[in-house]
């Protein structure tokens, strides 16, 4: 009401000075586009007048104009020039104007620190405003000003706001501390640390949400500070903001690795054989096994699993990571997180998110393909997938390949090779096809036949290098059975007009290597190339020279092996030697100095009885190309494999190995006894969880027999807790007796976790009651 009256008065005031321009303003109130037209007509000269006006409406128009220019990215407008005019409006009573000024200050304060200092006093004053929104805004604005001289003042204001009754303000405090820490680094660490601890033990989940961001960035190594909070954090996980949930899970994963004992794997068929969770994911030797987790670890994983219905993709990925890092494949499967991950990638929207999620799935699959076996069809490439997504999908498919699904997958991959228009995708598909061929001998034969059949296809021509590479790897792994393939290749070599030089080079190289297995067919290839040498491409010519040398060296060796007595190899009479010389002669006149050079080098190898060196150089057994999947698994391989996945660097970092802590000798779960909470909301009115789900809240279930005993106690504490609502904290602490044994306390905590589960975020207050109770308990124990 007061608001509207003031509006009317201001309207009357402006009516006094009604001019043509004012009429335009009045008209502009009709719609936002006409307002925009009006706003755009505000000239740079008249802007200061508006900003300095006494009429809040005009100030607002001015500020809107300033922010619009900022947002439109108009670099011509010198907005810094209005600094003083803008900043003085921070004293305005209108929150909107304040906020607009804060946006301006954030961007331009560093440009003019001296002028920025002028505003500090009024901002500081409004930190003690009665409106929490203003307090929070002022604190945010103050900490956004990156002027080093100000940091002590800001820190002081922050400390004052630490005990603010409004959770919004306290969470702004956490983020303000983060900003200061970013600017000042370790210089302020000593100041920030105790404040961070206080914020972490705040009773309000919203504050914890902000505090966790601060903690994660400022003190990532001080995980021991989380001891007293661990159990509570697991409980309030669903109540945190989505972004804090992600950070919290990341943080607690590291905490668990550091401070919790490794899970034990128990063989189901033989319960006496128990091993620790192996450091390599998929190396559990038992066919069927049970998992024994530390109760605290179980608490965390349960809490994480309960969030799997979230719509936030980052969160789902984090939950997957938690299970991947902290539990065996069995738990990962039971958590159904694979389903949630697989559901995320089906969206056809244009978002880079799909690639990120696919890469995470690729990491999981590379460690244990069975995790996503059931969703294999989701990884078939769809027309709307972009190149990166398609490539990652094909990589995943090649991990999921088994003899059972090979037929279907192979036909998908063949389709991609023949129809896709993107080179990278075709290349990856060819690699996947090579993986198919490793399944069995018959698959290998089938794939080679297919590859030869489609060699001249328009599409495969584009990825000829990869194509030849795949054939090469196929032949190299089992050369003996591939005589027919080589015959086919020689046919392609001579009958295909538009085979690229690199492709030809690859095939020629292959013949050089194949000479070891079947010598007889190779000289003929060389003979035919001598005729066309000059018209071949550079890479092909190079390989022809090399092939000639290889064959000659092989021929000399063959000769020596067949003749017992030390007869000299007759270079003059040998056909191969003649061909070699012919090639050398041709190479002498080559345009490319590299080829000329190479030819001289090779020719010198065969002079003066250096054939041994020649055969050493030219007949080195070549290593088969490294595929993505290797069967053996050592730690080193694990890392090698990881880098072979071709992930983006940020994803690679994200899945950095974290080792389980080895020296948990003095392991003691009592360090995770809850610590006292800071509850600043005692003045707020209470409400019960009934308002959330109405009267028909389902009966809460208890988890086990041990919980039964404490159930009545729990209700008791809740009711007493509510009774103390209006007392001060000190009174509250002094009043409640503290004979309850410690063990039962923990149970009470778990009980309240159940309660949270039922009612999710609504019963903050209820929760606080319990927490209060616990804190009071812990404190009295300290006494």
């Amino acid at each position, binding site marked *: 009401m007061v608001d509207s009256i003031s509006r009317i008065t201001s309207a009357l005031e402006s009516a006094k000075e009604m001019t043509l321009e004012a009429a335009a303003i009045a008209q502009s109130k009709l719609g936002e586009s006409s307002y925009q037209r009006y706003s755009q007509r505000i000239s740079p000269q008249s802007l200061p007048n508006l900003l300095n006006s006494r009429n809040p409406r005009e100030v607002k128009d001015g500020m809107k104009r300033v922010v619009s220019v900022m947002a439109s990215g108009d670099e011509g407008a010198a907005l810094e020039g209005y600094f003083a005019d803008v900043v003085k409006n921070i004293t305005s009573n209108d929150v909107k104007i304040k906020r607009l000024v804060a946006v301006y200050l954030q961007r331009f304060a560093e440009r003019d620190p001296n002028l920025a200092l002028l505003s500090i006093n009024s901002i500081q004053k409004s930190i003690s405003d009665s409106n929490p929104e203003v307090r929070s805004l002022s604190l945010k604005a103050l900490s956004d000003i990156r002027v080093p001289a100000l940091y002590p003042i800001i820190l002081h204001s922050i400390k004052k706001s630490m005990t603010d009754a409004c959770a919004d303000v306290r969470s702004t405090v956490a983020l303000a501390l983060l900003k200061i820490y970013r600017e000042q680094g370790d210089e302020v660490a000593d100041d920030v640390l105790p404040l961070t601890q206080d914020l972490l033990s705040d009773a309000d989940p919203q504050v914890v949400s902000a505090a966790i961001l601060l903690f994660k960035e400022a003190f990532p190594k001080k995980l021991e500070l989380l001891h007293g909070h661990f159990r509570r954090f697991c409980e309030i996980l669903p109540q945190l*903001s*989505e972004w804090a949930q992600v950070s919290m899970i990341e943080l607690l994963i590291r905490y668990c690795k550091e401070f919790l004992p490794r899970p034990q794997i128990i063989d189901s068929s033989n319960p006496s054989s128990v091993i620790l969770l192996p450091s390599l994911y998929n190396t559990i030797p038992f066919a069927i096994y049970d998992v024994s987790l530390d109760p605290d670890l179980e608490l965390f994983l349960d809490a994480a699993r309960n969030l799997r219905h979230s719509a936030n993709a980052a969160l789902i990925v984090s939950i997957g990571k938690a299970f991947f890092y902290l539990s065996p494949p069995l738990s990962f499967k039971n958590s159904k997180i694979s389903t949630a991950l697989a559901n995320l990638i089906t969206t056809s929207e*244009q978002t880079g998110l799909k690639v990120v999620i696919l890469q995470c799935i690729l990491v999981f699959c590379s460690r244990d393909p069975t995790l996503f076996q059931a969703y294999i069809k989701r990884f078939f490439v769809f027309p709307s997938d972009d190149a990166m997504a398609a490539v990652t999908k094909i990589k995943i498919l090649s991990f999921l390949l088994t003899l059972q699904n090979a037929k279907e997958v192979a036909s998908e991959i063949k389709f991609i090779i023949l129809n896709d228009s993107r080179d990278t995708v075709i290349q990856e598909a060819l690699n996947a096809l090579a993986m198919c061929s490793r399944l069995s001998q018959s698959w290998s034969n089938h794939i080679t036949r297919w590859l030869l059949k489609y060699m001249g296809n328009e599409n495969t021509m584009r990825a000829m290098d990869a194509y030849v590479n795949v054939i090469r790897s196929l032949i190299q792994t089992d050369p003996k059975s591939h005589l027919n393939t080589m015959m086919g290749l020689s046919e392609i070599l001579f009958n295909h007009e538009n085979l690229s030089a690199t492709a030809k080079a690859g095939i020629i190289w292959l013949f050089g290597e194949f000479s070891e297995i079947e010598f007889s067919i190779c000289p003929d290839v060389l003979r035919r190339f001598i005729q066309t040498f000059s018209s071949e491409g550079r890479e092909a010519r190079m390989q022809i020279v090399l092939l000639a040398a290889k064959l000659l060296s092989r021929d000399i060796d063959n000769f020596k092996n067949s003749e017992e007595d030390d007869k000299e190899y007759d270079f003059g009479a040998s056909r191969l030697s003649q061909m070699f010389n012919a090639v050398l002669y041709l190479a002498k006149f080559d345009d490319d100095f590299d080829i000329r050079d190479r030819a001289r080098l090779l020719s010198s190898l065969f002079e003066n009885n250096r054939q041994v060196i020649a055969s050493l150089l030219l007949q080195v057994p070549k290593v088969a190309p490294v595929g993505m999947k290797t069967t053996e698994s050592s730690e080193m391989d694990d890392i090698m494999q990881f880098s072979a996945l071709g992930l983006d660097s940020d994803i690679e970092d994200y899945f950095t190995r974290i080792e389980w802590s080895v020296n948990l000798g003095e392991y003691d779960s009592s360090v995770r006894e809850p610590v006292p909470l800071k509850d600043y909301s005692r003045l707020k009115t209470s409400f019960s969880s009934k308002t959330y789900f109405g009267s028909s809240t389902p009966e809460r*279930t208890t988890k086990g027999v041990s919980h039964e005993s404490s159930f009545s106690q729990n209700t008791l504490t809740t009711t007493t807790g509510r009774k103390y609502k209006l007392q001060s904290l000190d009174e509250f602490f002094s009043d409640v007796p503290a004979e309850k044994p410690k063990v039962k306390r923990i149970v009470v905590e778990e009980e309240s976790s159940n309660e949270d589960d*039922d009612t999710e975020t609504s019963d903050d207050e209820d929760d606080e009651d319990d927490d209060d109770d616990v804190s009071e308990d812990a404190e009295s124990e300290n006494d």
Partner: protein
Amino acid sequence: MIVAVFIADSRQELVFQYLVSSDLPGYKSLRNRIQTMAPTLAAEPQAGKASVGRSMEVYKHVSPNGLAFWCATKPGPTTPGAKHPGVGHPAEPLVFLQTLETLLLHYFDKDQLSVAKIRNNYDRVTMLVYSMLDAGEPANVDLGRLQEMVPLRRDLAKVVNATASSLGKRLTQGDSHALFALPNVQGVSLPTEKSVPWRTAGLVFADNELYVDATETVNAVFRRSTHGARDRTRCVSAFLEGTIDFNSHLTGDPTVLVRLDLSGHKLAVPALHRCVDTQGTDFHASRLRFVPPDGKFRLMRYVVDLTPGTAPASHQHSRALANLGLVVPELQSALGANRDEFEVTLDIAPSTTVSAVDNVQVALHFPQLPSGARVKALRTTHGRFENSVDNRDALWLLDKTTSTGTRPVLRACIENSADDTTTTTTTATTLRVSYAHKGLLPSGIKVDAVDIVAGLPSTIKPFKGVKYLVKTGDFVLR
């Protein structure tokens, strides 16, 4: 840490920018950098990420109407053990951009965000981004909370419109008493305690209403294989992507129970809005119980997998067909006297609830044709046929609405060149079908009831509406 947010239109012109500091590069210089360092990301309507310089990453998200949402991040501290400077969670910036887009849509209550809307509301969009981000972290992404901080301007035009529409509504309802009642759209929010963090406290509405929009996107790939004379089609993979959007304006803090008829599907781990209580013992995807946030939000997103990897192929095909919706494409090749014609048939099944299917289109893709060759439509029962310039794609556009229970047919062949009337036996390699219709979800999932079980005064009878929409994603026959 997010240091800049940009929105650009489909021509890559800047629409909106938000920078936290004046020494950051503006959109233009950043775009130049991206164009040199990550040309693929800059050029196409492609989403993704790229690294520009040592200490800056850019992320891009593209909205359905072509607006590009960019954000630039600077690395935080290095995570212990990592090789590179810490960039945090790899998915976070992209999720933020997606959140920003949906948030703006819901804030302005639009289905599509236009450039003009952003330009007209520079101050609001700036303040929204400012309120969302604190210390470069998405500190506050709750729509209700942001609406409190940055109230939407309800200008005169909107009031006039609201009045007109409510007058119209009341006149049609014949409720003359309420004719002159105030069309108070949004009540005064009283400073009472919030019951749940996502709901604005003390809401009062004159018109209580709630709408449920259930949308499913059909994704399917069929493969055609020629066995003898007849072509056989087989379903390679098929799944439905469903979303249930909720839009409500209800007084107080009501608890809503949405009951779904899942018609036999198991919705494995649907993604739900955080307001849905998933922890209770009686939680099931068919009974969603929640206190709704005010306004629009996405209640649920689910995937119905019609071809699970484990089921036998024959069973999969029939199951997929049963739930694929009304339109099934077919392609027959080697027809006619010279066996050089092909025929595309769309089987639009009859339905009691759906009278017509909208905007049916079939995009045909051909292998590389000899030069001069062109696709010639011999007969079309519905719509028209368009050839593209590069001769590898053609489009069969049906009328705006095609009634259900029909079988549109396209018969065509490929002529080698204009003067030479000989034809080749090549046929289309892929058909991509798209359509949309209302009234029935292919999966058969229905909203059985939307009950307000608690929290709403019993005198208020809210208006409820349910809408079903179907569209196509990747619907391909090849």
